[in-house]
């Protein structure tokens, strides 16, 4: 009976939401602030990827919040899993995995850093690059579970990268402007070194996300 009732409710919810969604102005959204950002972003921020300018400049504190959430999730997972049945897995993984991960490791690192550093030009950025970096460390950990990446090193990178992100923001505040105000000159649109402090911010984000997720995955995989 329980299942039928649930299905009924699910269908009911679906129909209702569809009824409501029919009134959505699809495709012609009143971009109250969208248009203004599209107009001002290239000039004011100088980043080719306008989403990045929104993520790091216009809505910078959202991204800071986002970093803090990931940090909180990793810390909480650490707190929860702290000493749960951590039996260290010794021995080596299979030959294919070991050589594969050795080959992949440098490749993943370069792709990861590429994505992070080109955040303001092409799609992608700190988060996506960070995940790729984490995958790199995780692959090497899978291959050789015994020497897992140093826990201290990870938390150090994590802490410093986060502090760097806030440091850049505070620097703007100290310099008379507002918190997280874009600094440095905007340079040529489309160049690697452009859009002022945005690449630095995304680098900090990338390192932090990478370290955090690597730690998290290592902890989970114990």
């Amino acid at each position, binding site marked *: 009976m329980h299942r039928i009732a649930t299905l009924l409710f699910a269908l009911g919810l679906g129909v209702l939401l569809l009824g409501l969604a029919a*009134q959505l102005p699809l495709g012609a*959204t009143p971009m*109250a602030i969208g248009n203004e950002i599209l107009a001002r972003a290239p000039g004011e921020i100088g980043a080719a990827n306008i989403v990045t300018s929104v993520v790091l400049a216009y809505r910078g504190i959202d991204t*800071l919040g986002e970093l803090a*959430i990931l940090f909180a999730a990793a810390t909480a997972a650490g707190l929860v899993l702290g000493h749960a049945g951590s039996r260290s897995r010794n021995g080596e993984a299979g030959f294919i995995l070991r050589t594969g991960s050795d080959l992949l490791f440098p490749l993943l690192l370069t792709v990861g850093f590429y994505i992070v550093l080109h955040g303001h030009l092409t799609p992608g950025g700190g988060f996506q690059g960070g995940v790729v970096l984490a995958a790199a460390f995780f692959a090497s950990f899978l291959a050789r579970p015994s020497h897992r990446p140093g826990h201290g090193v990870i*938390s150090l990178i994590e802490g410093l990268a986060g502090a760097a992100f806030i440091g850049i923001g*505070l620097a703007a505040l100290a310099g008379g402007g507002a918190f997280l105000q874009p600094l440095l000159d905007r340079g040529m649109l489309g160049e690697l070194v452009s859009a002022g402090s945005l690449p630095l911010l995304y680098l900090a984000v990338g390192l932090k996300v990478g370290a955090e997720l690597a730690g998290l995955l290592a902890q989970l995989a114990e």
Partner: protein
Amino acid sequence: MNALVLPVVLPLLTAFLLQPAGRLSAALARWAGPAVLLVCAGLLVQIALLTGGEPVTAAIGGFAPPVGIVFYADALALLMAIAVPVSALLLWPRAEAGEAGVRQSALMLLLVGSGTGMALSGDLFNLYVFYELLTVASFGLASATGTGRAYVATVRYVLVSGFGSLIALAGIALLYAQTGSLNLAQLADLAPERLANPLGLAAFACLLIGFGVKAELFPVNNWVPDLYACAGKPISALLAGVVSKLAVLVLLRLTVLVFDSPEAREMLMVLGLAGLVTGELAAWRARDLPRLLAYSSIGQLGLLFVALSLPGPAGLAAALAVALHHLLVKPALFMLAERWHGSLDKLAGAGRASPLAAGLFTLFALSLVGVPPLPGFWAKLLVLLELARGAGPFDLTALALVLAVTVVEAHYLFRLVGILYSPGEFRDRHSPRALAVAGLGGAVLVAAMLTLPAVSDALAGLASQAADTAAYRTLTLGGGL
């Protein structure tokens, strides 16, 4: 007034650096947290004195709203912002050794930073992000006790919060599809013509459920009893006290600024009444103290939502009175629960063993029930007066229910007071800090009672300022830095 951002950013910075700092010296990691909170509280008080209660804004990143995110600090926001670090300092979890202790302090700092952010921020999605940060931090802290039941309770809490946050996200999507903006002031401008239709109300319903999880709103509050019974009492006090008020503050901003329609108020009242009745009746049946307090907290917040549904500055004053009263009483009660172990009938003789604690409990019980000279009565009187003013069918049923529920509340509270003072051998857990917090709560309550005229004028000022949407819009959009 760009310094407004510091009380939000400094705790986050310290949290990030706590782990590496822990490497250097354990003492630094242990005392860095409380020290930063003191600094933040000082900063906020200084800002409050500087602005003298006049609202002030801070555009993040230098981008004037509505494009950028803006922090709006009027007297109410500053009051709640100050309450967060202060109560976190008072309710700092017992320091654990080593790694777990550092992580717990980091989570507490994140909780305070996000709490202050929620109080000050003027952007809807920014509020959502801080709300999520608050939630994730509370997941970690709630499961810190390490017992099996705490983990299960936290998992259920994670699921309900997850459900709430995805509904809130859907709400934000609906809202954005209709108005194209996230800044509360601009939403207030666009609301009359864009959000008046059922879809606008659906967006409000989604946001209500989303932010209602932490505000213990009716459909999404069944995680409350188990979590407060299993999590540490300080964290339960923090969650039930200041954190739930922050969520209510966000909803207050939404109802006052953006969704000012009668249907929205009706929805708030119905859900509030449902929470009030189920909470108090469940408390009447509870047989252990933490869950009794949890149910009573649901009931009190139900009353707060009923108060929130009352239109106009007078309704807002009533809501603020109930909110501040609950913010004062509930953490103190939870700290008393830390001194006494769970079951009710094991508390016999507590009156003789710890007379001060039992006396304080009686004082709080009297104020919760609303016995005249105490502030609890004036808060309830304001709510009842506003309900009577409405005189609609909903209002009168609400009036009758609030009064009827008070009788049930009086019965189970004073059944417990009777047990406290009945003869029996009893030894309570020695926790001086619990008594200190409860004593402080009691002292402030009595002080509020004695200086009632001054408190009531301040409250009226607070409410009228918060209800003044025109000032909010002109100041925020007018680019007043």
